[in-house]
């Protein structure tokens, strides 16, 4: 098994979840209705919990303790897609991101239930229940707001256009992709992207939103290689503000 390729995969998964979990948690107290406030908080907790589990797997592979890894790295050491670090914007922006990300995330973890790396396969099985709720939540809201008022449809369509290039950036391949596929750890980004596109189309076709013209979209890559937007470092500075007062102590 190619350890380097495996670690890179785990970092990518863990960082996506940590960063989006953090962004989701920023909706606490700010949701458009109390029920949504609570829902985003639940998903944030699931995501941060899942990322913690992945950092523990990395720790077992010789990386530092989860807290140190999560709370002391700089932006250029993060492997998340740029999609998840973008500021929350308005609710339509957060909702569309949630829909696009969680669709991919749940399909990714379904694939990983068959991973040859047993600890990852076990984790994948364990979190299926959580993931089902995330996609159920996203799809329900997209269908509701994508068929409701002129404003809601226009807003969602606008956010879809803005976010789609970033969403395609989730599927940036690793230079070690072939090793992962050959070792049976992960079936690869291309395979994932193909199913994701059809599932996204399926949900959108039940709404008054236009299905994107995939051919003309240009993916925003770079996140997997540590090339991030200007938004990530300030977010990390905030996240580690207390932890950095003394990273050696317990809080």
């Amino acid at each position, binding site marked *: 098994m190619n350890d380097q390729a495996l670690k890179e995969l785990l970092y990518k998964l863990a960082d996506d979840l940590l960063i989006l979990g*953090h962004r989701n*948690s*920023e909706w*606490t*107290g*700010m*949701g*458009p*209705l*109390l*029920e*949504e*406030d*609570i829902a985003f*908080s*639940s998903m*944030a*907790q699931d995501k*941060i*919990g899942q990322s*913690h589990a992945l*950092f523990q797997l990395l720790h077992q592979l010789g990386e530092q303790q*989860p*807290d140190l890894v*999560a*709370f002391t790295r700089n932006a250029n050491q993060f492997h998340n897609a740029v999609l998840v670090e973008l500021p929350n914007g*308005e*609710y339509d922006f957060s909702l569309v991101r949630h829909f696009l990300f969680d669709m991919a995330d749940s399909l990714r973890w379904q694939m990983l239930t068959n991973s040859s790396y047993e600890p990852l396969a076990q984790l994948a099985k364990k979190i299926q229940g959580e993931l089902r709720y995330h996609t159920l939540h996203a799809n329900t809201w997209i269908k*509701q*707001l994508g068929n*409701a*008022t002129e*404003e*809601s449809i226009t*807003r969602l369509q606008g956010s879809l256009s803005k976010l789609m290039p970033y969403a395609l950036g989730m599927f940036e391949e690793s230079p070690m992709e072939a090793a992962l596929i050959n070792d049976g750890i992960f079936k690869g980004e291309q395979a994932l992207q193909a199913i994701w596109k059809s599932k996204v189309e399926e949900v959108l076709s039940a709404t008054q939103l236009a299905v994107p013209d995939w051919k003309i979209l240009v993916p925003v890559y770079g996140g997997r290689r540590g090339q991030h937007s200007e938004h990530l470092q300030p*977010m990390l500075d*905030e*996240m580690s*503000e*207390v*932890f950095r*007062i*003394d990273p050696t*102590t*317990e*809080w």
Partner: protein
Amino acid sequence: MYGGGNTFEGIKTDSVAQEDPQKLAAFEARIARGEKIEPTDWMPQLYRKQLIRMIEQHAHSEIIGALPEGTWITRAPGFKRKMSLMAKVQDEVGHGQLLYSAAETLGKSREEMIDDLISGKSKYSNIFNYPTFTWADCCFISWLVDAGAIVNQLANAKGSYGPYCRALDRICAEESFHLKYGHHCVIYLAAGSPKQRAMFQEALNRWWPPMMHFFGPSDKISVHTEVLMKWKVKMGTNDDMRNQFLDMYVPKILELGFTIPDPKLKKNPDTGRWDYTEPDWDEFKRVINGDGPCNKERLEVRRIAEERGKWVREALKTSKTAYVTPLA
């Protein structure tokens, strides 16, 4: 989280004299027997009005209370604290939801209540008008403000209005976890580096006066509440609640080696009650009436959230939806 919001506004009892004496007597007899009053039962106008006001203020306190702690979710140090604090603040918002539903059973919609919050017509717990400067302030709230809230809520859970009592039972169960979480955070600060200890001592110095205010004005100056006590709307006097809190938590604070910033604080062996420096009630009134350090900011955040979310709520309304009062 909740702080005696019902105790600082005067009540007019004139309307009680106009109630049907037979119905009133039957109502009072039911309460005296320990029965719960349910939404469709007969109740005096004052009872309904006072309960709406109290439950609504409690609900507002939950969602406004989510703000000073909520700002620390993104800064919580380490996975464990981050996940716990998220869950804790989420609970508070959930309590708000539960309480708005309980108040709605009395005939005021959630929308009206939130409008009254934003316009300043309806109050919320005073303590959330103070700023959380450091992580230790956030820990103070999680431990001691929640502890104070539990003292109030356990008492109110024995009150007479069914939906409110049932909501409080569920809320208290969750609050007891908050208390454990908050205490755990403070233990780590107490047992940590000198810097961590100093952080909490400073937070304690800042938060002690608002914590003493939390239970409402002294019985010597507070408005008369006999009828509300008889109807089991209010279950204890402000000073009773304050004493109960001091009984339970002063020893725990001292045990951790911190100093409470009140040289007069001690238990009086003769009365069995606590002596303390009288809190500054003028400051309390100033802050309640809008002139605290964070009143404007708190309401502004709430107002912006409501405004930004309006299109979502509009989009949920369809020709088929109708307003239904919740059963609680």
